[in-house]
């Protein structure tokens, strides 16, 4: 990271009063697809300004849980859930918060980079403001584009081609563009669903650095299959597991150091040491 970027980050925080981050708490969350139960009473606190990693083998409900956190779960036909999810003690499912407001406050980055192909790089960054009709009057668009791209660690690579289509970037750049797009609406919490699984090691490292920088302003929840990544980026860790023919649940959760060095549950030990899964 260059020194000019450091200065920008400091300024960012001064400009962003929202940048304190918010906590997210899930209590007794269960989820179904039709009659099929996929999550069983998951309780997890995701404290402000920390990176929480969700780990576990495929099909154990990590992604479903993540999608419940910003009300994307209900987009699947036949999907239902129970329990409570609260952002700063306000229940996002029952308190009358608009679903669009919930999703704007709790941003999401998907496994597959999905910039809008009909928009340029700059328009992609600003798309969230247009889509949610949430206009920020404090900054002019060009300034906002630059700040978000800087925070996502992409500015230096694309500043000469803000007018090119978003789909023309490389995979790693597209994913960082998606991060910048998610940041432009100033979310308090950012959910990431295996953001690096389609990327090469260099892009992965770049995104991990971005996550570490963002933690200062945003609360991050990340799903990952990569144990080293979970160890590198997260402070808190939850291990999901679905026993045979049973819904997924959290087997163990705790500070990342403890989960990886001295887990209580033998299944956690087996998983993090690579003996199964």
């Amino acid at each position, binding site marked *: 990271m260059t020194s000019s970027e450091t200065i920008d980050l400091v300024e960012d925080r001064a400009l962003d009063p929202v940048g304190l981050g918010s906590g997210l708490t899930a209590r007794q969350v269960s989820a179904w697809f039709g009659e099929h139960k996929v999550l069983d009473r998951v309780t997890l606190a995701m404290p402000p300004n920390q990176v929480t990693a969700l780990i576990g083998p495929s099909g154990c409900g990590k992604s479903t849980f993540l999608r419940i956190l910003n009300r994307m779960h209900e987009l699947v036909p036949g999907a239902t859930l129970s329990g409570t999810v609260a952002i700063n003690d306000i229940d996002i499912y029952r308190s009358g918060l608009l679903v669009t407001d919930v999703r704007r406050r709790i941003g999401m980055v998907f496994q597959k980079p999905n910039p809008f192909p009909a928009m340029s790089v*700059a328009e992609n960054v600003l798309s969230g403001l247009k889509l949610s009709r949430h206009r920020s009057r404090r900054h002019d668009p060009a300034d906002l584009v630059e700040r978000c791209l800087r925070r996502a660690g992409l500015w230096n690579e694309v500043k000469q081609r803000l007018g090119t*289509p978003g*789909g023309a970037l490389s995979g790693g750049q597209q994913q960082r563009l998606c991060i910048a*797009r998610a940041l432009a609406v100033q979310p308090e919490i950012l959910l990431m669903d295996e953001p690096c699984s389609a990327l090469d090691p260099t892009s992965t490292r770049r995104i991990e650095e971005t996550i570490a920088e963002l933690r200062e302003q945003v609360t991050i929840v990340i799903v990952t299959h990569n144990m080293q990544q979970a160890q590198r980026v997260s402070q808190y860790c939850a291990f999901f597991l679905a026993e045979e023919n049973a819904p997924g649940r959290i087997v163990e959760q705790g500070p990342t150091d403890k989960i990886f060095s001295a887990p209580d549950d033998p299944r956690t030990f087996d998983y993090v040491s690579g003996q199964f899964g």
Partner: protein
Amino acid sequence: MTRTTELLRRDDGVVEVPGDPAVEERIAVREFQGSDAIELLGCAFGAFCLTWLVYERLTPLSGGLGFFVSWYALFLAAVWFVVRDRLGPLEARDRLARVVVASVALGLLIPLGLIVGYTFARGFHALRPQFFVQDQSRVGPLSPATEGGGSAGIVGSLEMVGLATLMSVPLGILTAVFLNEIGGRLARPVRMIVDAMSAIPSIVAGLFIYAAFILALHQRQTGFAAALSLAVLMLPTVTRTAEVVLRLVPGGLREASLALGGTEWSTVRRVVLPTARTGLLTAVILGVARVIGETAPLILTALGNTSLNANPLKGNQDALPLMIYRLIRFPQTASIERAWTGALVLLGIVLVLFIVARLLGGRGPGHIGRIKRYRLARKGLA
């Protein structure tokens, strides 16, 4: 072979190939080479000779179609034997399939070429500039074909199709959005009705407007009534094509938009429709192509007119297909020639419309146009 594998490693670690030429020789990796073309031509020629021998010398067979079919069959057999001999049965089967597919594709071009060519040959004679500016009101039974023109039909056709497009495209695209983005229990019956609509004979669409608009609402036959009947015909084509196109928009984009706090409508308007722009344009083109040559509904709703009437809301209006239908039934050669010229102009209009449509919005979603780029640059975003 050995020469290229003898690599020299210099002291500084660079690998050198001896005899390294300054310009690399590229390998032409083409599946279809010159020798294959000669082989095919040889097979075609041999098959032709054999067929000729059988038809003209050995048997009392005759008839052009039979000759052609026998020639083609013998040609395929020859291709199969020759390729099998050279490359084996697997390759022979592959080549045979390729030849059949290619010849069918070429065969489809024949009727198209004949239609365009014949229309051109018959209609070109009377195609003069005045065809675009004059109408048929001063044309007498003995006037030559170069007198008078089809301006009434050209203006009428453009206005009717334009009005029909204005009515059916928004309706069709909104219906497609409903079927694809909202769906639910109503989607199935709606889709069924749209499918059923696409099977409506065009004369029935004309009758429907005649009964439900002209008779029931005490209207006259006008260009607007004709446009209504054309819109009825256009609607299912636009809807079904647009639906297929919208279905191709990746679901990940919708999710991304919703996850940013977008509403369903803003997702459709700012993400789904722009991404599908090229395909939606195809839907419009197919819809226009469906109706621009329609004659039957116009007979009941527009009635036709020998003089130019540019007002679609008042008075009878002419259209090119209607004009062709009217003129081609006269016994005078001049009249028939004028009809062919009208057909030629109709073909030309279709061609021009399609080219314009492609130029306006034919690029893929990943292309950012000049106007938009300029607008972005003014905001400092490009």
